[in-house]
């Protein structure tokens, strides 16, 4: 029993370590891709490491309420929680994490959880304008949750399971078995929701410095910011892996390294898709993005669900 727990813990740590580093490098790479479109050379790919190390080395000189300190912790917990219940590589013991039969629901909860923690933390920052950012963030999140949930429901209905591992298992055997092709409406709804989830343009108003008065990103400084940046990497990784699993057949290969390669390729493309849209468009206002999510993506989600019902 103990051995199995320890082994599991070790495996999870390895998986965590791999995904953290991969995500950080991915963030750095994407920053360079974005820079390329903007006509710049851009930062070094390892810049996210430098930022995190630097920020973690700093300490805050001011005190806030306890909730302020807990905000980033909640956020990090949300990120970790999301990640720990998603199997990264199908069939691999090391990268299976704590996947179990209802994990997709738990993951959806954790995606929300971090944001809520953040909202509470920012609320206690003492900055009177944080509520504006928080309200925008939560409103937009609620909006994209709808198509996302519908997409997940459609997928769950399609395979009759709430287990990510099982959903991935059902998609094996070639690209024609992927949800993307078997259930394109669910995939479309999910991927549109993913745009909102990743807070890139046109859904970046939550973190837009131009359009709100100075909010959480400035309030959270020093190691708080370091923690948030770490979370950003993990959370991003987790989300991409989740979407890969849900819609694009996951990553599976007897050889663990080839499987990792597949994972990297798929997640890279998924992220590139976000950036692809992100650099091309300005951002929506909050109510515009809510309208957007409640429009076409929700419709697509509904179609997907109805399709499965029938």
């Amino acid at each position: 029993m103990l051995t199995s727990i320890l082994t599991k813990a070790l495996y999870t740590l390895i998986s965590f370590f791999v995904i953290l580093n991969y995500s950080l490098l991915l963030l750095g790479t994407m920053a360079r891709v974005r820079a390329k479109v903007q006509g710049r050379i851009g930062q070094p790919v390892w810049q996210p490491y430098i930022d995190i190390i630097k920020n973690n080395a700093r300490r805050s000189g001011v005190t806030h309420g306890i909730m302020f300190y807990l905000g980033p912790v909640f956020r990090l917990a949300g990120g970790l929680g999301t990640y720990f219940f998603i199997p990264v590589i199908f069939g691999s013991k090391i990268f299976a994490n704590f996947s179990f039969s209802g994990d997709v629901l738990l993951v959806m909860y954790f995606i929300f959880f971090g944001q809520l923690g953040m909202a509470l933390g920012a609320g206690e920052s003492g900055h009177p304008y944080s509520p504006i950012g928080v309200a925008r963030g939560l409103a937009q999140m609620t909006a994209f949750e709808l198509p996302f949930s519908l997409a997940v429901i459609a997928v769950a209905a399609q395979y009759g399971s709430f287990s990510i591992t099982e959903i991935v298992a059902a998609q094996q055997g070639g690209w024609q078995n992927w949800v993307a092709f078997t259930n394109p409406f669910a995939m479309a709804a999910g991927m549109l929701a993913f745009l909102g989830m990743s807070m890139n343009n046109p859904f970046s108003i939550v973190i837009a410095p131009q359009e709100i008065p100075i909010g959480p990103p400035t309030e959270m400084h020093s190691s708080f910011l370091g923690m948030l940046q770490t979370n950003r990497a993990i959370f991003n990784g987790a989300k991409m892996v989740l979407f890969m699993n849900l819609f694009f057949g996951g990553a599976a290969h007897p050889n663990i390294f080839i499987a990792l390669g597949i994972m990297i390729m798929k997640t890279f493309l998924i992220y590139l898709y976000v950036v692809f849209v992100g650099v091309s468009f300005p951002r929506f206002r909050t109510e515009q993005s809510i309208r957007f999510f409640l429009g076409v993506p929700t419709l697509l989600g509904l179609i997907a669900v109805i399709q499965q019902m029938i």
Partner: protein
Amino acid sequence: MSLKDIIAPFSVWKRALEKPYTNRKPIETRPGADRYRGFHQNAIDQCIGCGTCEEICQNNAIDLVPLEGKTSSHGDSGLRPKIDYGRCCWCALCVDICPTGSLGMSNEYIWITTDPEDFRFIPGGESKPWDDRAEGYRRAEGYDLLEAERVEMPMLSFEESQKSFIEMVQGYSKEQAMEEADRCVACGICIATCPAHMDVPAYIEAIRNDDMGEGLKIVYNANPLPASCGRVCSHACEYVCAMKHKGEAISIRWLKRYIIDQIYLGDYKEILKSADESNGKKIAVIGSGPGGLSAAYYLRLLGYEITVFDANEKAGGMLRYGIPEYRLPYEQVDKDVEYIRQLGVTINQDLKIGVDRDFKSLYDEYDAIFFSTGLKDPYGLEIAGEDLPGVQSGLDILDEVTKGKTPDIGKSVVVVGGGNVAMDAARTSRRYGAEVTILYRRREVDMPADEEEIHESQGEGCKLVTQAIPLRVEKGDSTRLKLFFGMAEMVDQGEGQRPKPVLIEGSEEVIECDSVITAIGQEADYSFIPEEIGKNLVFNRGMVQINEFRQTGDSKIFAGGDIANRKRDAISAIADGHSAAKGIDIYLTNFKEK
């Protein structure tokens, strides 16, 4: 909203395939443009510390500070601009206006030090990496904030001028004077060089303001003979003028003349300060040249009773008897003298001390004596035949002309000498119709006469023969005289010494002429000073030794002018007179036992 609106934005990805705009290491690879206005450079030896940069700097970023290794000298204040880069706005107006052109800007704009004080330094004075940079901001060709050329002075043409004694320089009109005065950058470098330390920028400013009264006041503060000085001053100031580094110096002398020409003598009284109440002390001034008159004027202002003794018929000394009328009309000398006389100075003419009046009696009667008797006795040529008729001194000629006599010079004249007296004698001779040749021992550049005198004498047709040493004079055949002279070569005398002319053996040439006019210098005559007083005075190579208050070895006797200073010009004599007046006042107030 059309489909295009959704697809078109993705066209931004085109750029991802193109070369990025940015550089990898901008700091290393991007120098400023050729004209970039970066940190200053200053050619420290070319700079004269005139402070025009400080004047134009709208930010007060420039200070003038002493720099180690630079000392004040004539034409160089010894100060150098120090720039506070905390204030500098890099407008480069200082570069544009710099009269010497020493100031520039390099294209260096990156310089990092941790000490803010480092950003205050003397460009060129403190070594910086960009000191020798060729690139950087320089004033462009075709753009200039200062005028390098002086306003041309209306003059009689040489054909006109050599026919008569009408004043050659006609003087500026109001517009011309204002335009010329406008060129001045008011640095004040000239003040130190002027022997009388006249406040030149101030009276030039008065011209700009068209306030002649103010100008006259400023001029009279340091010079009571401005009408004469404005014409014949040796203008040392113009040689150090900051604008001379750019082109031509400001016509300081002629601007001074302009001020005086605008005001009638009768109006002087209202403008200038009048003399103090008489304080009962009496001063004797011997000699009514510039030195004597200057001393008399300033002493009179202080309330002393002044008596001037002069051997000539009219006052003015060398101004009247040594300078021909085409340069300095007599009525201008009269104007200066007359005002001093009006102030209550008694001038006794035709009274020669030592002959008509005993020096000892003056010494006893007056509280102090100032003498400035000048150099009256011309040097002889010291060659054979110099006592032949027709050999005369230049001063005598000028003196005769002043007295209204026609000099006996004949048809052709040889003038020996290179000073102003030589030029004056030569040009005067031209006006009596003679053919004139000037012989001078050294080169033209060595001639002590004013540049314009040399130029004008040649323009009026005087022939100049340089490096010629007279050997002997003989009676002529067709003409009255024959002058034999040999050619000289210049022998270097080592650093700091001017080259010496040495006769080339065997060279001998001859000129036939009616007169030989010698003008190779004069010496003083102290014979009027009795032995018992004279023993207190110290003489050195013919000059009276004086201290800074122009006091001689006898505490009651003061001296100045050509007999006491080596500059031997009117303005130095005036300065001597002024200083002596100050000295006498100090002496009589503080030291003289009642």
